[in-house]
């Protein structure tokens, strides 16, 4: 019956794939959580608890049950929104994460704007001048962005632009002086400070944001440049480009209106994927810049071994990746007339 509705079937197929991937994700975090050498019971009851207390907590945590039952319990907890409590703050882990997320989203969003703003034009320039010097310059520039250890570049940039030149703010989201001056409404400091009409805080925030965002943006522009270049090369090699030129259109018109117009959809999907990739860079760059976001939360908890928090973070990154993959797929379907 389903064969009569190819679209419905493909949607169902995709939903199953996503469900299975999600389940696998949960299984993976569950297994990693179980491999942990530290004893979760000891972490709660302390070193010199009596045998009875130990057994009691052991049973309370459900560790006496078979592994598959523990996994089902974990699934049930996750789907009812219970990700456990953080050992450090005593708060539900998910609350902590929601609290730090806006800082990272602010950083990643500015970074992706810089990355795409840099990567797309460079990719087009490289493709148009294939195998001539602009192509080589762009290639080396973007390979540099791809090869640099971002935590190191962050430090070097701090030494130069903060310590020596004093052009930008140092670590954190704003100067110490302004902390607590703006009411926390959305968690996005740029928006909050504008809402409160505090332009000083706004500029301070921009000042602190620009350096880490530029570095993250540069590192993600490498990927965007490469993909833009290869998409453009595909288009430029096609016969309709020659036709357009023969019809008398200028080179600029054929490049920007014809070729570039055709790769827009592909670019959107690439940028969506690059946005997810920024999370990885964010873990390192947030550590360097003392940025109170998701990445710093993850590394802080890794160091103290708070596995509930760590595994929830890993799970969230996985879910974000799946969601972005799905989104780019959907965008492709919506905007590309050929898939209709």
């Amino acid at each position: 019956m389903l064969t009569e509705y190819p679209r419905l079937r493909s949607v169902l197929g995709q939903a199953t794939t996503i469900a299975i991937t999600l389940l696998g994700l949960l299984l993976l975090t569950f297994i990693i959580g179980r491999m942990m050498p530290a004893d979760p019971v000891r972490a709660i009851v302390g070193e010199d608890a009596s045998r009875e207390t130990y057994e009691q907590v052991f049973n309370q945590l459900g560790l006496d049950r078979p592994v598959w039952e523990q996994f089902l319990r974990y699934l049930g907890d996750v789907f009812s929104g219970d990700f456990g409590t953080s050992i450090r703050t005593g708060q539900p882990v998910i609350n902590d994460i929601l609290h730090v997320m806006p800082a990272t989203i602010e950083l990643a969003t500015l970074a992706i704007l810089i990355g795409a703003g840099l990567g797309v034009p460079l990719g087009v320039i490289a493709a148009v001048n294939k195998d001539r010097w602009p192509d080589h310059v762009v290639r080396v520039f973007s390979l540099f962005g791809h090869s640099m250890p971002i935590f190191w570049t962050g430090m070097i940039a701090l030494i130069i632009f903060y310590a020596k030149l004093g052009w930008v703010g140092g670590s954190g989201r704003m100067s110490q002086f302004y902390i607590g001056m703006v009411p926390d409404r959305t968690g996005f400091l740029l928006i909050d400070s504008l809402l409160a009409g505090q332009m000083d805080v706004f500029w301070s925030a921009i000042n602190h944001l620009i350096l880490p965002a530029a570095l993250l943006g540069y590192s993600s522009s490498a990927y965007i440049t490469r993909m833009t270049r290869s998409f453009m090369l595909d288009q430029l090699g096609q016969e309709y480009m020659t036709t357009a030129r023969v019809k008398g259109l200028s080179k600029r018109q054929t490049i920007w209106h014809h070729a570039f117009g055709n790769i827009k959809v592909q670019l959107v999907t690439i940028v969506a994927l690059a946005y997810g990739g920024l999370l990885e860079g964010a873990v390192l760059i947030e550590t360097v810049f003392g940025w109170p976001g998701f990445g710093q939360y993850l590394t802080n908890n890794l160091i103290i071994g708070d596995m509930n928090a760590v595994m929830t973070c890993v799970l969230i990154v996985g879910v974000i990746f799946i969601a972005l993959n799905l989104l780019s797929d959907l965008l492709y379907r919506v905007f590309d007339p050929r898939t209709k």
Partner: protein
Amino acid sequence: MTDLPLPTRRIPGPLLALRNILTFLIRQPTSAFGLIVLAVLILTAIFAPLIATHDPYVQDLNNVLQAPGNGHLFGTDELGRDIFSRLVWGARITLTIIFLVTIVVGPLGLLVGTTSGYFGGRFDTVMMRITDIFLSFPSLILSLAFVAALGPSLNNAIIAIGLTSWPPIARLARAETMTFRKADYIAAARLQGASPMRIILKSIVPMCLPSVMIRLTLNMATVILTAAGLGFLGLGAQPPLPEWGAMIATGRRYMIDSWWLVTFPGLAILTVSLAFNLLGDGLRDALDPKQMNRR
């Protein structure tokens, strides 16, 4: 065997291809740079005791945080250890990481990819789902999770990187296998009664090997950056090991006044990962038949 005269100095196909690829790489300035850097890295690692000017572990508390020059090419760190010598010995750690990750990832990816490509069907679906799950994390985040579970150390970092970087290899090996598995010589082997294991090991794996090796080279830059990132976060190599990422982490406290502590290890990481990227870029061109004809 028949008594047909065999050509005496016939170079086997794969080796000939390898020679062609190498010639192509050396002709390009960028990939030649990559090859040279790697050669230097390997030589440095082998001859580390001869190249290093000081013992990388000996502390000299009278000479801490010395600026470059004065008998210390790249200066000294917070414990008076010679940074140049530590970088030289660190090359061994970098090479160890590269080598161990390769021998974990290569066979694992090949095994998963070739078996699922050869058997197909349900087995293939399940294996590819698992691959997708691993692919849905950025490699650093998943390695972080594994290291958190296993405990921080250089070996665990290598295991974690190995566990997280096999999926692209498996994908590639599977795609290659799918193209051969209907080939006549595979059918011939099967009709002779060869077991699936034998067919995979003797007939399929050798065919996948060249492209897998190239893919491994392409991934090495990421592996090096991930290992350095783990070292930087304190989850990889532990002090006093002269691992470059860990050196940056300890130098971070002194970076404003003593820039050389973080600058030189970072340059080392950048150079090696750039070399792998340039080499990978060259390899991609070398293997693209369209490009090869044009040049």
